[in-house]
């Protein structure tokens, strides 16, 4: 394969600026196969794949574009997550690319994540060219946005394609610029194999499948390979590339190409994302830099709703970790929830994504506890504990002091909402750093914020207080001493460990009160009255009561409705099954999650 005909790139954008739509358009406007490949009857292989029912999530897709110069180019479009939580994932996708398309909304202009993503791409030495999207919007101001890109980011934008991905306007120009502005790969096929694993997934039929970008060398069926970090070795069974949602086998992958490798690797851990694959018989000198190991910032407990599904959850986490190395987990037990895992995430959104994947892809019903950051607990004997589960907080008498993580936050917001957003940051114990106007109407606010104030509903609050006109990005700054307490929730006088969390002393009362109110709405009436209390140590700081149910009986039941009444009773019983028994109180599973979303205005 002639490398000059390959373009490996990704699309970066602030959330909602149209990244996925543009990706769809690019795929639609290009072909799946080169004309030579079509003659080689690769289609047969594809049919076989179809029969096996193997499909891949479009983490990467290879398409063929016939450019205006009359030549065919191979496009490898590698997907990147758009959210701040996933900077780590973005960077591993970027490492597989040679260039990036920057999508900017013609109405909204540059947002916080636009900047963050561009800087990441530039860090990876990628060539970035901008595309102005959504020019069809009445509020579109492409000229203003072009100037903004040049002023703020400092990249050439005058000839940026002005497009509407939604309406298919300007896509041709984007395709041409991919050819002209994104550099071709410059690897050496003659050198020993050096391939970056940028993603992987487990398929019960093929085993672990490594998604790779070849930097140097070649690989084909039978090549003995070695994973340089894990040291695992295997013989390649199949290589190929990514059709639209399909694995398409081919004879060989060579320098500059993007594709997949299977090698009957049974243990998913052997294909760690970020690792370098080389030829075991003829290894390269040194591994690729890989990715820096990111630290989980947010922890929570995840429990199967049905205790018997614990092994299923363990397997699912193991498989998820395969292509989400930033997820980590270890077993824990809760009095309220039984056996589960304490899981570490990059952020709250990452947590939600993982939860959703576990529920959707692995068909698990989960109960998730309140997320927590990592607190540093300095004990009087000098020991320092990293606390990820509030339940493990040592007795206050042996605690000297505690520290909490602080982030540097950047918020971009239109002038009108600077006031409300500053107010929000103050409420969240933020420390004002600076404010600068990027242009007349938009300001960049910098704050230092405690991370534990961000992991609850901060995004929602930011959105609602700016009517959607604020964007947000943050990075870890470090730890600071803080006056923190553990807030416990007692339901019918019993402490529910899964609901405990650490909070700043000054917010304890407010947070406790809102938790009690929320739980009162979530816990159904029982045959008896249920007190719900929030406590710090032995001191009760808030209380609500779930009144006793007065009646629950069907007045009528005759021959005509026995089946229907039975179904009604069954439904009632099913509902109970999905609840957690704490003492003699049944708590719906969603109560454990709903307390995380303590509404602003409630």
């Amino acid at each position, binding site marked *: 394969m002639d490398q000059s005909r390959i373009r490996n790139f990704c699309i970066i954008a602030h959330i909602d600026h149209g990244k996925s739509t543009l990706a769809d358009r690019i795929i639609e406007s290009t072909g799946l196969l080169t004309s030579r490949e079509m003659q080689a009857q690769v289609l047969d292989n594809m049919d076989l794949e179809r029969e096996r029912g193997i499909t891949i999530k479009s983490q990467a897709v290879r398409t063929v574009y016939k450019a205006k110069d009359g030549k065919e180019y191979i496009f490898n479009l590698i997907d990147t997550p758009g959210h701040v939580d996933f900077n780590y994932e973005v960077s591993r996708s970027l490492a597989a690319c040679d260039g990036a398309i920057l999508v900017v909304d013609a109405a909204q202009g540059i947002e916080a994540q636009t900047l963050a993503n561009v800087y990441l791409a530039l860090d990876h030495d990628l060539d970035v060219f901008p595309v102005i999207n959504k020019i069809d919007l009445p509020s579109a101001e492409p000229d203003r946005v072009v100037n903004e890109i040049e002023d703020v980011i400092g990249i050439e934008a005058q000839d940026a394609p002005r497009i509407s991905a939604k309406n298919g306007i300007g896509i041709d120009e984007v395709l041409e610029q991919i050819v002209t502005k994104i550099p071709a790969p410059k690897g050496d096929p003659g050198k020993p194999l050096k391939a970056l694993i940028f993603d992987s997934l487990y398929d019960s039929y093929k085993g672990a499948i490594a998604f790779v970008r070849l930097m140097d060398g070649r690989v084909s069926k039978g090549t003995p390979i070695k994973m340089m970090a894990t040291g695992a070795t295997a013989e390649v069974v199949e290589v190929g590339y990514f059709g639209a949602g399909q694995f398409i086998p081919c004879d060989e992958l060579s320098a500059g190409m993007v594709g997949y490798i299977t090698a009957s690797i049974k243990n998913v851990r052997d294909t760690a994302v970020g690792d370098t694959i080389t030829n075991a018989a003829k290894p390269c000198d040194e591994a690729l830099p890989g990715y820096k190991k990111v630290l989980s910032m947010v922890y929570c407990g995840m429990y199967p709703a049905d205790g018997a599904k614990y092994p299923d959850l363990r397997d699912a986490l193991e498989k998820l970790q395969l292509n989400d190395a930033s997820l980590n987990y270890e077993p824990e037990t809760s009095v309220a929830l039984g056996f589960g895992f304490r899981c570490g995430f990059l952020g709250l959104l990452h947590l939600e994504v993982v939860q959703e994947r576990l529920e959707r892809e692995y068909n698990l019903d989960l109960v998730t506890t309140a997320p927590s950051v990592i607190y540093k607990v300095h004990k009087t004997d000098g020991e320092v504990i990293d606390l990820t589960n509030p339940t493990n907080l040592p007795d206050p008498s042996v605690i000297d002091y505690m520290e909490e993580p602080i982030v540097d936050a950047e918020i971009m917001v239109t002038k009108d909402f600077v006031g409300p957003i500053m107010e929000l940051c103050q409420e969240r114990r933020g420390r004002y750093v600076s404010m600068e106007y990027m242009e007349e109407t938009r300001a960049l606010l910098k704050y230092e914020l405690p991370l534990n104030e961000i992991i609850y509903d901060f995004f929602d609050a930011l959105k609602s207080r700016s009517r959607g006109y604020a964007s947000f990005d943050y990075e870890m700054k470090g730890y600071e001493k803080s006056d923190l307490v553990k807030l416990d929730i007692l339901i019918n006088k019993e402490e529910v460990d899964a609901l405990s969390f650490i909070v700043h002393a000054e917010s304890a009362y407010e947070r406790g009160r809102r938790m009690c109110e929320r739980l009162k709405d979530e816990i159904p009436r029982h*045959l008896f009255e249920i007190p719900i209390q929030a406590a710090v140590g032995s001191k009760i700081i808030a209380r609500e009561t779930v009144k006793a149910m007065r009646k629950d009986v069907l007045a009528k039941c005759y*021959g005509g409705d026995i*089946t229907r009444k039975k179904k009604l009773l069954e439904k009632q019983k099913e509902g109970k099954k999905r609840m957690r028994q704490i003492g003699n109180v049944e708590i719906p599973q969603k109560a454990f999650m709903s307390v995380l979303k303590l509404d602003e205005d409630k």
Partner: protein
Amino acid sequence: MRPLGIYIHVPFCVRKCGYCDFLSMPSGKEGMDDYIFALIEEIKGYGEKYKCEGSEYEVKSVYIGGGTPSLLLPDAVGRVMDSLHETFAFANDKGVEVTLESNPGTVTMASLNGYVKCGINRLSIGLQSANDNELKTLGRIHDSAAFFKAFDMAVDAGFENINVDIMTAIPGQTLNSLENTLKTVTGLGCTHISAYSLILEEGTPFYEKYSSKEGLPDEDEEREMYHFTVSYLERRGYLRYEISNFSLPGYESRHNTAYWERDDYIGFGLGASSLIKDTRYKNTAIMKEYIMSPLSRDIFSEQITLSGRDRMAEYMFLGLRMSRGVSEDGFKKEFLTGIDGIYKNELDALKRDGLILRDSGRIKLTEKGIDYGNYVFSRFL
């Protein structure tokens, strides 16, 4: 011979009440004639339809319900009764309870006399309330005067076993007005009273109208009315034998009791349900389908063969509705296994919570257990 109950459904009303979720519709005479014709065809062909032999059964009760069966002329009722007698073996005539539901606004002296001649020996009158404002709220077609008149005529026609339906928790109802309704009914000397709390059934206009619960008595008031009804009626000799049913001693409804004891019954007519040898059936609710082929098994909208576990669950949740509860011996006889072998945990927990009591071989709901009946029942599923 096994005891059998027969239910005949008459899905016609002058107009539909706002709270009613029974299968009924307004209809002209022609529609009713077609219906009676299909009904008789179904009765005569029941053996084939339900794959059972007439000789296995002895009819203990007939219940003509609706809808408003008193919209049928005595002639039509007579033809239906005749077809039943031709098809089934009846226990000796006096012993068979034959009930017809009626609406006070639809009966005349002549029709009542006619019903008696057809063999109807128990009349059920849907009063609901003696308060005219409450009747208006419910959308009933009659007023209390019409009820008094209907009751007198029924007595004159020779009915001595008369049930009156009343309702509690009607929007706007007070304990006072309820007491007045109870006083009125007991004063007339009926033998049986069904007292239901208004249930907001999904799909009814009331369900929409009162979705906010605004204007409805709250749970506390509803329970107060229920407990008041129980004590008021018991003081006057009407004993509660099921959660919502009261009677003078010996006048318990045999037909309804058979439902709670899981005797076999066959329902004829649109949307009618049957229990035959542990299979539950339900006819189609679509009139056209029913009229076309009342004997076809294809028109069953439901056909469920009960497992052993289903039968046990039914035994418990139906039996516990009755004041006398379920019998431990009866359970053993029916299922060849002791009740504790199956439900020990449930029974212990319910007893601990004061919801049931066990007393000389019987298990019953406590007063508290009645308030939380569904909670108790669902434990046995």
